[in-house]
Each structure stands twice: as C-alpha cells, then as structure tokens.
C-alpha cells in the first residue's frame, strides 16, 4: 500500500526543523559578518517548502523561490554545501561565485536554479517540461514563487503555454501576503491567485501552507496528474513570512502585532508539533530528540563549511562559456 501523507508527519517535522535550524545557524553567520545580509529568511514557510518538495520523485525538476533554503535542503543538497555557498567557498554548489542570495543548482537532484529577477523561472519550467516530453520521459517540473512575483507577465506567458500544451508543470505560489513592503491586497486584483488558473485552462487549488500534510497531498496529486498527461495545476499555498523581507528590514510597513500573532498562531513547526503531540504520534521527548539530532547535524555541517576555501581570482573568468571560442 502506498504511504500516504498522513504517515509522513514525523518526516515532515524533521525536515522543517532542518530548514529552520540551518537558517538559524546561517543567520548567526550573517550576524558575525561571515555572510552578507541579502538573505531572505524562510522562517514560517517551511510547511510549503517541505510538503511540496517531498512530493517530487527523484527524476523531477525543481525551480525554487528566493525565500529561505527549505527547497534545496529538503531536496537533498548537503547542509555543509549550502553553508559553503553562502560563505563564498569553492566547496559550495556555485564553487565560490554565488553567496548571499541563492543560485544553487544541482543537476543530479533536478534543481535547475533560480533567477535574480523574480519571475524569471516560469518559462524555464515550461522548457524543462517540454524537454521531458521531447525526450519521452515522465519528469515533472515544480515551479515555486511568491504571490508578489505572480504579477509578473512572465507568469502569464508561461502558464498559458503550459496549459495549452498540457505540460507536466506544477505551479506553486507561496502566498505570504507580502512582497517586500507591498501587501497582497494592495497589489493584486485577484481575490485568490488560484483564481487565475481558469484563464490558463488548469485547475486552481488553495491549500493551507502551514500544514505540510495538506501541501504534500495537493502537490502530490498535481504532480501525478502532470505525470500522467493531465497537464499543469496552479496551487496557492497560504503561508506566513515571520521575519523581514531580508535581514535588517525594519518592516515599518507592517502592523506591529501582525508578526507576533503569526508567530503565535501560524508557525508551521509549532503547529505540526502540537498535532503530533495531541494525536500521540510523538512525545515531547521524541520531538526534542529530533531537534537535537538535527541541530547537531547543522552544527557539524557549519563547522566543515567554515573550514572551506575562498576561490582565487581566476574563478571570476571561469564558467562564462562551456566552450572556448576565443579566435
């Protein structure tokens, strides 16, 4: 019998902890000046990221968002490699070139990368899905993005193409209500992002992003539909940004108690812990044990990463082209 999302709850819990604890350690590096502050915290969105990424099969493609690193971590990029990248060390996936915000790609894991211009990956997801069809594979492309980014025209062009060609793409919007300082309501005409689905001939689904079980179920269904030739789906996950847009953001644009309320009521890790305890699927000790184990894992990864190496100047000239055509 197939494992259902219900049975995976402890795994989800651990995966979310891994995202959060990794980030906590990273923020310490930011504070200590080892890493630049252009990091967009993912705190509060672990439910979406873990639930979604775990719905993929190994052969699938992932185009992730810029909010935190839950995507890459959950997909399996080693924690030390993640730190190395931010530290600008050659052991990181970008071999020292990236650092700060994220351009982590991992062809082996199907992680295609991220664009600096938000909304730059929609069309790439179409291309990856089209490529799967051309090559006759059953791969699916999962493309994740914020609700603010949903207002870029590139979404329209990509979603329409995916819809009309019935491509295996899953569009997953992380709606955290804010795009830097711009609120969802003041910048978006749709009642719900998912309302746009009908305009692209695909199902539109709204899901509680703070519940990884629900996200996982919705994304899994969409992934399977896509894999079986049923075409794309647009999923809107309602989630919460618990920190500033980037580190150091004073957030004057946000009501003082909004974040406090969200932290109290909408932290996906706390929410899942409560359920696990209530339904007696875990004791507090089990949960503490998971957290301690992951914290150790993170610490060890950070230590290894900190011992890494900065690149030499020649690195800046590498990787511009695959082939040298200097005449």
């Amino acid at each position, binding site marked *: 019998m197939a494992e259902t999302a219900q049975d995976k709850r402890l795994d989800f819990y651990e995966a979310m902890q891994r995202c959060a604890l990794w980030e906590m350690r990273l923020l310490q590096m930011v504070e200590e000046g080892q890493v630049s502050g252009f990091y967009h915290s993912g705190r509060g969105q672990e439910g979406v990221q873990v639930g979604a990424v775990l719905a993929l099969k190994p052969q699938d493609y992932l185009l992730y968002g810029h909010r935190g690193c839950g995507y890459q971590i959950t997909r399996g990029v080693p924690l030390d490699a993640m730190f190395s990248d931010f530290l600008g060390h050659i052991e990181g996936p970008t071999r*020292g070139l990236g650092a700060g*915000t994220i351009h982590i790609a991992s062809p082996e894991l199907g992680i295609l990368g991220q664009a600096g*211009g938000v909304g730059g990956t929609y069309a790439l997801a179409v291309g990856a899905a089209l490529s799967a069809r051309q090559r006759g594979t059953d791969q699916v492309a999962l493309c994740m993005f914020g609700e*603010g980014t949903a*207002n870029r025209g590139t979404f329209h062009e990509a979603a329409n193409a995916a819809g009309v060609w019935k491509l295996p793409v899953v569009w997953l919007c992380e709606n955290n209500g804010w795009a830097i300082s711009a609120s969802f309501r003041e910048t978006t005409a749709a009642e719900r992002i998912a309302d746009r689905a009908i305009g692209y001939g695909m199902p539109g689904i709204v899901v509680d992003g703070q519940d990884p079980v629900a996200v996982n179920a919705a994304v899994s269904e969409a992934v399977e539909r896509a894999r079986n030739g049923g075409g794309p789906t647009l999923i809107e996950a309602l989630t919460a940004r618990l920190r500033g847009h980037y580190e150091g953001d004073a957030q*004057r*644009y946000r009501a003082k108690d909004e974040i406090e309320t969200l932290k109290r009521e909408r932290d996906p890790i706390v929410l899942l812990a409560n359920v696990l305890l209530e339904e007696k699927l875990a004791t507090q000790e089990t949960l503490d044990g998971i957290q301690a184990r992951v914290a150790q894992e993170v610490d060890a990864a950070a230590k290894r990463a900190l011992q890494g190496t900065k*690149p030499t100047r020649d690195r800046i000239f590498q990787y511009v082209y695959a082939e040298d055509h200097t005449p």
Partner: protein
Amino acid sequence: MSRVIKYNVAIREALAEEMERDSTVFMMGEDIGVMGGVFGMTRGLYDRFGKQRVIDTPISETMIVGAGVGAALTGCRPIVELQYADFVAVAMDEIYNRAAKWRYMHGGRQNVPLTIIAPEGAVGGVGPEHSQCPEALFWSCAGLHVVTPATPADAKGLLKSAIRSNDPVLFLPHKGLAALQGEVPDGEYFVPLGKANTVRKGKHLTIVAWSAMLHKALKAADVLAEKGIEAEVIDPRGIRPFDFDAVVESVSRTGRLVLAHEAPVRGGPGSEVAAVIAERALHYLEAPIMRVGAPDIPVPQSVYLERMVVPRMEEILAAAEKICAELV
C-alpha cells in the same frame, strides 16, 4: 550659497520640489511608498504627498514603464522607478521601443515627458542581476536621454532637468553613492542634460569617468599629480545626449585619453566615445585610447569576488601611467 547633503537626500529634494510645484508629477514603483524605496530614495515622500502621488506598484516592470508612457502622453509628468537598473532588460521593449520611439513614429504629435529612475552599480554581493550598469545598452536609443549623476549636486540638478524634460529620460543613480556627501547649491537650480562637467583641469591627459568611477578618477589624478602628470578629469554625466565637443576639445590639448566606467569594457559606455574620438580627434592623439572597466564577465554574487570585478582607482592609474610613460 550652498549646503552639504547626501546624494540620496539630493534626489529626494528634487522629487519633492518637482512634485510640490507641479500636480501632474507623480511617482510609481516597487516599495517606494511607506517603505521609502529599498535604497531610501523616496523616504518621506509618501507621508508628504500621499498614496495617490507616491504609488506602490505590483512587481510588474513592463506595466511600470509602459504606464509611465501612457500617463506621459496624457498630460502627466510621471516618474517611474525600476528597483534595480538591471531590470531595464525586463522593460526593455517599453523603454527602447515604446518610450523612445513613440513620438517619432506617430509623427511628433505627442510628447513623452517621462522620467525612469533605475539605481545601478555593484554594492556588495547582490549578484549578476542586481549589480549592472546598463547605460551603454542605450547608446543606440534615439529618442531617449540617459544620465548618470556622480555627485549630490548633479543628482538633484539632473533629476530636476529630467522631470522637466518633455522627452523621456533614463536617470541612473549609483546605489553605491547613496550616502555620498557633497555641496549642493541653495535654491532651485538645474543641471542641463548632455553637458559634460570638467571637474579638474589638466594638460597631460584626459580622463573621462562616469558616475562612481569619477571619484576614483579624481583620486587617480591626485596620485598622478604627485608624479608630475596633470590629468584633466571630465564627468560626461551620462551618454545621451553626449558632450563629444567637450571631450574632443580636452583631447586636443592633452593628446591622451582614458575612459573609465564600472560596466565591462566590452560594450561599455566608453566604446562609442573612443570610436568618435578615433574619428574626430585622431590627429590629436599621442597615445592609444585606454579604457578601464570591468572584465567581460557577469558580476559574481560573492562580495569577495565582486571586489575583483569592479574597477579600482589603481586600474585608472595604471592606464594613465601607461600612456603617459614618456612624460615622466
């Protein structure tokens, strides 16, 4: 009389003065309202002029610029902001083909008094798509003006000229200069579009330096002076219109030219200037025209590597010394 203020404050003053004076002037862009812009350039304007005149937009760059064109055609004098100058590529069609060509292709019956603000430059780890200096993409953009202020005084004076201009202007402040202090005249003043500024006089060589590079060029000139080389330093203040006469005149006296900009040398703002000088002033040249700029690569995200890409004062110095070798 003058005051010393920051570059960013100078920009805010220009915006506020023009909005105060003319009710058809309004602004739109991402996070320019309550937040005051991600670089603080519009801080305070939302409180002062309200939500209707300082408009936060969706993340929709083609709309931002295109709506600017539409408003400019219909009796307003809009100022629109692209959060990073790199995003000129996102709205390239709207800038290059819409704003710049609309007047011409419709027979000159309409004006497009639009100002596009787009902060440029590398400032420490924001990566290949948030660090570029894209002005050279607009060398061929007939119909558009393009300015790159290097000082608070120019930031204010050029921006006011841009807003008053009946033609579209791409105004590219440098993010790295935001906190730069400088003298600014009291009272209202304008810096004309397309007039170069000879910042330092000299007779041995001409250094034309754009935006943030101006300050490095001036430092290089100091060092050169100690070695007996007197560099003339010109800030062209942009690329369209370009004050070729000022550069030709200077080179006619110095015989030597260094062009310095933060963008890559290859396809950077200097190439067109070098080409014009090689046609119009070849007979004055006593040495090759040198260009100083970034290498022909994207800007890496890592601050550590970024520092190896952004051209430094020492590179201007080296270029100058190379072509002045026989003078010392």
